[in-house]
């Protein structure tokens, strides 16, 4: 291979994000999106704080969120292109991957300063 391309890397991030979203998100939504807010389960705050502060949790969270954001960015970019037939290729790509990048940086800051 003489040339290096960006698109395959973005696709790999999309794929990785797709896998982790498929495997991790259902339980996370059930727990943190529904069960806890609705009071069906009430984990102790100190316990939650301990789990979230643990270095491995922070690392995994960072990895998951970065992959999920890039999964959204890649898929959404193509949805705008094919579904809504918006042809501004570069602005859309910059907006989508840019947002994912910003979100990833914010996540990095959060897990480092927890």
């Amino acid at each position, binding site marked *: *291979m*003489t*040339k*290096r*391309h960006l*698109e*395959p*890397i973005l*696709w*790999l991030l999309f*794929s990785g994000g797709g896998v982790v979203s498929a495997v991790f998100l259902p339980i996370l939504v059930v727990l943190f999106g529904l069960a806890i807010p609705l009071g069906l389960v009430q984990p102790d705050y100190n316990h939650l704080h301990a789990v979230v502060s643990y270095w491995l949790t922070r690392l995994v969270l960072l990895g998951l969120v970065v992959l999920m954001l890039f999964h959204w960015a890649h*898929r959404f970019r*193509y949805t705008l*292109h*094919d579904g809504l*037939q918006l042809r501004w290729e570069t602005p859309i790509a910059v907006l989508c991957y840019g947002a994912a990048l910003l979100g990833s940086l914010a996540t990095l800051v959060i897990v480092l300063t927890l």
Partner: protein
Amino acid sequence: MADSIQMQVTRYAPAPGAVPTVANYDVPLRKDWSILDGLNFVKDHIDGSLSFRWSCRMGICGSCGMNVEGQPQLTCATFLSDYAPGPVRVEPLTNFPIVRDLVVDIDDFMEKLPRVKPWIIRDDDVTVIDGEYLQTPEELEEYKQFSNCINCMLCYAACPIYGLEPEFIGPAAIALAERYDLDTRDRGQRERLDVLIEKEGVWGCTFVGECTRVCPKHVDPAGAIQRYKLKAAQENVMAFLLPRAAR
């Protein structure tokens, strides 16, 4: 079963500003007739000017692809009676320019197919005198499915990306590239990768999967494309990781 069924067939004669119209024809509804038989009845007995492509009438030449009730089908492999009592709409394949009536312009595909070099590529000069290539049945199984493509282009008609993005190389071409990449006799992976790793290659595909659903030969072009994406991504990562001298 009723005596006849109405076929609503697209007519188009090329002229500046002309648009396609629909003509209705009543054809006999025979139990064993295909859509193609119905069209041939129209041409033989009702309107000799109706133009359409067909050849083998047994689902192997790939010539008779058309939209039947909005679905890309081989008209020789689709029974008229499946649409009884009718009417049944017959239109030219989606996503291709119409030349006349049900005949579409397939030049785009004819240009794209050789770009992926769908033939055995080797750098040695073996000839027939040197003997046969040896290949086990297992090695044949690896690519056999993709070799069943009859170039009927139903997959291009089904693919919304091809409709929206005319530069997209398309399902059949990529499936055929994969067929040769997986053939142990071939050594041309790199050359095909150079073509397919570009923007109009595999990356435009969003795995809608409709191409696989309409394929009359169960080639599974969607599967071929996703496998190719993974292969291309792996090669690309190697290109990033390997030292400069190796590129």
